[in-house]
């Protein structure tokens, strides 16, 4: 952080007043932005410039800015959260860009994620999928003694890996079909691996898949773009598991 190089970036940003507006790309130039800044900090600089000029700032979702909340969501040069693997837009830094670069910034594009304003999309379809079965409906009370429910180490690891999903929607955004399979599979997988998830296992898989289809996400073409785009490294093995879970639910019913 000793060298603080200044950069000038040319941006093509999707601007859309509201859900009904047609929307269009608007060109901006951000000058003198620090190379050590994050991508969202660069947008903050742009917005300050816009506010000073009396223009409407670019609306984008953000919260923790440390890569764990899943709020930030934008396509940066055709890649969800930018082209760095396992990185959220807030953790993407300008040192990965060159002075004078043109960067195209677009919202997630999916029928199930309607645009609210500029780069902000409505991701409540994910919430409805979770409501359809992504939970354990027992009153757990206090934490039980750790050895009373033994969980094999591999299962615990697999469940934790799936539970790393932050629900940002990058998988949907990157998928050529706007499919939500990686998200849904992570949510089904994290509980299918644990004893607490067993009583509702079949129902969970069936209901969450039904809700996913109802929300009009596309189907899975097994291309793996979702895994590549996932900032949390959720694996395609979860999708294979979801495909298995649904078959299992069908046979058990």
């Amino acid at each position, binding site marked *: 952080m000793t060298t603080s190089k200044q950069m000038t970036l040319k941006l093509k940003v999707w601007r859309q007043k509201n859900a009904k507006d047609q929307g269009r790309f608007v060109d901006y130039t951000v000058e003198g932005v620090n190379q050590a800044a994050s991508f969202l900090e660069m947008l903050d600089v742009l917005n300050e410039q816009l506010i000073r000029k009396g223009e409407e700032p670019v609306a984008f979702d953000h919260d923790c800015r440390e890569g764990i909340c899943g709020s930030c969501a934008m396509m940066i040069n*055709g890649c969800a959260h930018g082209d760095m693997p396992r990185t959220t837009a807030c953790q993407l830094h300008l040192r990965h860009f060159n002075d004078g670069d043109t960067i195209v910034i*677009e919202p997630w594009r999916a*029928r199930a994620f309607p645009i609210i304003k500029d780069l902000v999309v409505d991701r409540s379809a994910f919430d409805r999928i979770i409501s359809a079965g992504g939970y354990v409906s027992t009153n757990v009370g206090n934490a039980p003694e750790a050895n009373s429910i033994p969980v094999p180490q591999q299962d615990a690891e697999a469940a934790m890996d799936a539970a790393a999903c932050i629900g940002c929607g990058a998988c949907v955004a990157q998928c050529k079909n706007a499919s939500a399979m990686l998200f849904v599979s992570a949510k089904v997988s994290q509980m299918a691996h644990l004893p607490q998830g067993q009583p509702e296992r079949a129902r969970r898989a069936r209901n969450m898949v039904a809700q996913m289809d109802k929300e009009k996400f*596309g189907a899975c073409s097994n291309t793996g773009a979702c895994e*590549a785009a996932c900032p949390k490294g959720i694996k395609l093995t979860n999708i294979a598991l979801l*495909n298995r879970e649904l078959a299992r639910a069908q046979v058990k019913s």
Partner: protein
Amino acid sequence: MAMASWKAYLGSSIGKKKLVGLTGLALSLFTLTHMAGNLLMFVSADAYNLYSHTLVSNPAIYLAEAGLVAFFLIHVILTVQLTMDNRAARPAGYQHAAHGVKKTSFAAKTAILSGSLLLAFVVLHLQTFKFGTVYTTTVDGVEMRDIYTLVVEKFREPGYVAWYLLSLVLLGMHLSHGFKASFQSLGLFASNHPTLAKLGWAFAIIVAGGFITQPLAVYFFGLGG
């Protein structure tokens, strides 16, 4: 109740993909056996004709053919339906194409296109050979169709050879995505499982490469006199 639940299962996006994967795998195995049979061209004209005659004179051929047609139709109808649904799931596309690791493979993106051209190929292929000119020959005192002569005749036409080669390259591309993808749809392995990904490529190259050897041998190396 049971009926309705199966309908919901197979009608879901996952259920449809399972049928696509299952029929795709069955058709993939068919292409492998078909390719292996074709290699008899390199043994002799009689061996090739006898193999063909043995296949078509077995009454079970009608069952096998009906099965193939059914698999083909299910595969085509469902993939067309899924493609339409998938396109509707993203009404407005992106201005900037993906690049680097987040990019989707060309074979996966164009599977519906390669598949459509393969459908045209299969129809024309049946017309050219199965329902094409009938020459006859006698092998071990049995009169049978001389399909070998017809194949050699066709593989001497440059236009036909070019179309055949193009179709086989498309088949290879289609298989390079479809073979490994089927395993993920069926819930067996992730499609990017390192061994499966290699096996998918090997399968595609062996099948397409195997088919391609005969037109090349006939056209460039004078196979079949």
